[in-house]
């Protein structure tokens, strides 16, 4: 996974919770049902979102449950990543674990509008709104988090660790 993503922005507000990203009664359902239920507060979002698009949100994005279906749903939609003023911490950890770039970037919500062309890099913490010529600097991910992203998520790190151990044992 690349640490840097660029795409067209969808704006969401404060306190977008994990139930809104993945309602409980859909989390074990087939993908089409799961997909239709994502962030229904903006009904046009799931019908018009394009691969590589980004979400820019307000405070406390992903508050609530530990359900990983929340970031997983956004990733499966093809979203490139999320910029928010702040994140619910379990949601954010789940993003790192599944290799989904999300960056807490204070000031970003006021600096973007729907459809803007925005780029960010979790390794540097830089976010750029190309449409408006605005650049913001946020705290970057730690090197360990960037490495998990680069390897494609925590399970890929685990798989490689196991393979390395087995290769070592058979040598």
């Amino acid at each position, binding site marked *: 996974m690349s640490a840097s993503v660029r795409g067209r922005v969808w704006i969401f507000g404060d306190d977008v919770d994990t*139930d809104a990203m993945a309602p409980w009664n859909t989390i074990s359902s087939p993908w089409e049902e799961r997909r239709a239920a994502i962030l229904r507060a903006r009904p046009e979002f799931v019908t018009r979102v394009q691969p590589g698009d980004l979400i820019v949100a307000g405070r406390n994005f992903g508050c609530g*449950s530990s359900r990983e279906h929340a970031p997983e749903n956004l990733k499966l939609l093809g979203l490139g990543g999320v910029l928010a003023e702040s994140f619910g911490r379990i949601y954010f950890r789940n993003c790192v674990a599944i290799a989904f770039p999300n960056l807490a970037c204070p000031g970003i919500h006021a600096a973007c509008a729907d459809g803007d062309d925005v780029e960010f890099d979790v390794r540097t913490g830089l976010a750029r709104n190309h449409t408006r010529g605005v650049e913001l600097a946020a705290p970057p991910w730690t090197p360990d988090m960037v490495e998990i992203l680069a390897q494609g998520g925590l399970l890929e790190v685990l798989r490689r660790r196991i393979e390395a151990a087995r290769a070592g044992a058979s040598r």
Partner: protein
Amino acid sequence: MPVPMTMAEKILARASGRARAGAGEYVTARADKVMAHEAFVLCALKLLQLGIERVFDPERVIVILDHYFPAPTERMAQGHKLARELVEKFGIRHFLGHAGICHQVLTERGLVLPGELVFGTDSHSTTYGAVGAAGNGIGITEMTWVLATGELWLRVPPTIRFELEGALPAGLMSKDVVLHLAGRFGTEVAQYRAIEFGGPVANALSLASRMTMANMGIELGAKFAFFAADTATCAYLASRARVEVKPFGPDADASYEAVHRADVSALEPQIACPHSPGNVKPVSAVAGTPVHQAFLGSCTNARLEDLAVAAEILRGRQVHPRTRLIVTPASHAVMLEATRRGYVETLLEAGAHVTASGCGACPGGHNGVVGAGETCLSTTNRNFRGRMGSADALVYLGSPASVAAAAVAGEIVDPRTLWTGAVPVLDADARSAA
């Protein structure tokens, strides 16, 4: 001189094999206990895909089926069947079946002890802070990693302390206190931070009442939400765990990012209004709101003392014709003791519907999903739009007393019009049924 540490720092230092862990440092910490509910199936399948057929330590892993029990659909029934097979395959030592809601059952069986680090596949794992344990909710990928390795990277969180002063007024419960904190300080006050609850009000609370507040620590954003484990907590756990349990708390001069003082002596019962646990008002501001469903359940509030208060309010009264009252005890053991004490009979006589223990209606699963245009007053922890069913329902959160009183009145009402007692301390009586 050793540097004084908060509860979070002490636990993460020990769990990562260091003399000291300061706020802001990253550590790799070893889990003392690991709890997975139905999510265990997804984790176990991922382990098998990776060719891993054992967990790091089957003695430290606890699996329980609570979110979808009794199975509401054929798909869930199949999921439970698979869970039982995978529990056997991995040799999980503590399979708790369907004994109730995870956090309640682990506590009442003494499976989580003061000073321990606990990872759970549930955001309300902060509940373990009520016994002085660092309980932390994680997703299934991180849980898969923990089940394989026994450890996880964590940033040592700064701690904020709530000093709860004065005395809890008659007719109020710890739920009112934690809702007050959410309303006054906001749902991000403890984001990326640990909480310690202290002061005379915290110290006087029963363990069950502490669990309610630690449980809702996550609604304040918290990574952990602690009470110091005092002698009463230790005695409770020792009788269940059958091991020696020692008090555990912060060092005297530990360093806090912030100390917030709240005097609760003049507090009114508190209600969180749609659609956020932080949208909190005194009950007088929302009294008269018609209630279609009153729900007393969830890991937040359905313990023995909660059912005792509800029974006291409903004794000799009837649930209002407009309202359905659904009671889902926090565990099978709670249900059994509440039955022995006559609380269940009192509730049933009043017209309440008592269900099997489990998460039930709280996440909108089953046993009380709400429809469009309906209003629910609930003892649960979250009232996000659509959380309990329809996105066009209105969910309010309150104490068990507020819920029981609303069930009688058919509308939100100050519970002190029906009850001005004190919450009974019944911790020692809430024996495990097993």
